[in-house]
């Protein structure tokens, strides 16, 4: 733990960037319309106290309740997207990036951090859906790769928290190859027999599902999350009829054998800690 302590002592100015969840006095659940104070809502880890609806949250929120004492060291935080293809659709990609950075206070759609989870050292990569739909471009791929490298180097488990619409189209094939890149890195982790736990949250679709999100030694999900390869609209168009109730939910995936377990956000930390402990001892 020497390495971690050393960095921790260097913490002088804790920075705080803009949070994903808008501040307000009251929170109204979009599912059951129950109203609760924002304070109670965040104390309940952004889960509706009435119906259990899990609000979409970002990396800051996950880090805040997963890491012991909310202490962690961010890795590869200096990476930002370039515009390798000079991509332009109705807008310039560089302008989209700039607007997204301004709006969210984030640099891209994933943040990687290392710290302690119930006193066990871990690396966590958590995605931010608010940044261009959590899409995976070169930065997301590279950050995850560096997170995995860190796990390899220090022999600590890697945890990913997926929340993404899939590939970042504006980086075209660069984006596609991040699927191969993250999977190749994970193959090294697997070879080194270092545990990898993949947490799938709402939504996890497209190239994320078809790469690192489905490659956990354990694949676990929050309840009620949309998880799939093709989006529901595309599947509906393909089969030409309505989709069955509950199609592509966490519960559906568990039933079809693609998840190890579903866990409510309130129990996420303790369940993760237990899984890690069982791997270790």
């Amino acid at each position, binding site marked *: 733990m020497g390495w971690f302590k050393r960095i921790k002592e*260097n*913490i002088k*100015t*804790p*920075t*705080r960037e803009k949070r994903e969840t808008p501040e307000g006095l009251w929170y109204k659940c979009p599912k059951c319309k129950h109203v609760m104070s924002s*304070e109670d809502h*965040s*104390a309940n880890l952004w889960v509706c106290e009435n119906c259990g609806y899990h609000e979409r949250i970002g990396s800051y929120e996950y880090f805040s309740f997963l*890491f012991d004492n*909310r*202490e962690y060291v*961010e890795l590869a*935080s*200096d*990476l*930002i*997207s*370039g515009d*390798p*293809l000079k991509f332009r*659709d*109705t807008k310039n990609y560089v302008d989209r990036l700039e607007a997204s950075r301004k709006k969210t206070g984030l640099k891209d759609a994933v943040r990687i*951090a290392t710290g302690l989870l119930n006193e066990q050292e871990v690396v966590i990569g958590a995605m931010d859906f608010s940044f261009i739909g959590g899409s995976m471009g070169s*930065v997301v*791929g*590279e950050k995850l790769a560096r997170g995995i490298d860190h796990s390899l180097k220090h022999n600590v488990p890697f945890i990913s928290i997926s929340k993404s619409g899939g*590939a970042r*189209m*504006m*980086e*075209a*094939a*660069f984006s*596609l*190859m991040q699927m*191969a*890149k993250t*999977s*190749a*890195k994970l*193959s090294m982790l*697997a070879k080194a027999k270092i545990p990898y736990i993949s947490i799938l949250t709402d939504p996890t679709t497209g190239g994320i*599902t*078809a*790469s690192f*999100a*489905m*490659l956990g030694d354990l694949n676990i999900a929050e309840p009620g999350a949309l998880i*799939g*390869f*093709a989006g529901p609209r595309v*599947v509906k168009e*393909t*089969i030409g009829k309505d989709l*069955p109730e509950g*199609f*592509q939910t966490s519960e559906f995936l568990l039933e*079809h*054998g693609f998840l190890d377990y579903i866990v409510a956000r309130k129990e996420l930390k303790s369940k993760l800690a237990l899984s890690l402990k069982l791997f270790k001892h």
Partner: protein
Amino acid sequence: MPTFLDFEQPIADLIDQLEQAKSIEEKSEVNVKTTIKELERKIRNTTKELYENLTPWQRVQVSRHPDRPYTLSYIEAITGGEFQELHGDRNVKDDKAMVGGFGAVDGETVMFIGQQKGINTKMRQYRNFGMPNPEGYRKALRLMKLAEKFNKPVVTFIDTPGAFPGLEAEERGQGEAIARNLLEMSQLQVPIICIVIGEGASGGALGIGVGDKVLMLENTWYSVISPESCSSILWRSWEQKELAASALKLTAKDMLANKLIDGIIKEPLGGAHANPLEIFERVKVEIQKHLGKLKEMDSEKRIERRIKKFSTMGHYETIETVHVPVEDTGSEV
């Protein structure tokens, strides 16, 4: 009767004239030899000019040309018929959109795997338009593992408009099947060569695309999405497919320039379908050339290089920041 793409109209017109000249010569004794020669020259030159200046969208069209050879034709030609197709994923069923099996290339056994499109309306249905289900990717993986067990190299032919987005595909874990292949191919002990022979659409293509050498035929495309779907999502209209094709930088030349593939195999004049025997031969030569070098390498070294190649793909920048570790002060305000 050959099929002509819209931009090939000038060639079609010239061929029409040539046919007419030939029938005149047959019916009457009029000497049209010079005219015929002149027309043949014009056809060659027009084809050359058109094909040397194809737009990205036109290349997408060529990659989907109905006369273009598909995976099994390549395998048959390269092995001289000494090929045994192997079926099934040993779990659910045999996916007709993904084919594979051992074949001999001048006496050396190679595991061939690829998406297969249908050659006519009936077969297109049968082959599910070259869109594999999860069992297709799992069959591919089974065959790769079989090759690894007996120390035979793997050659994959990529030609798909995408993995099938159906209900049962989702139930059986399309995402997991592709993901598993990406991971397993990264660590496969034997050499892998992947060749895009037609369409390389997204994860459905990449699912058999992690190799020591990834090559593209000259008139193929490889990207994260088809130009049509890209147009519909980013422009909210199906009409911008030509713009999308250009923006995606999906041609072999662009892919090589961006270091996302390792090489390009030149096609015969007028595209692969204009002279299948020639493209089969060129592909065979490339396979033998690369396999020769890859086989000499130590397998651990080869895997290391394969992983390193994919790990360095990407383009990002570094911002100058005072590197201060972050401590979250919590979310309650």
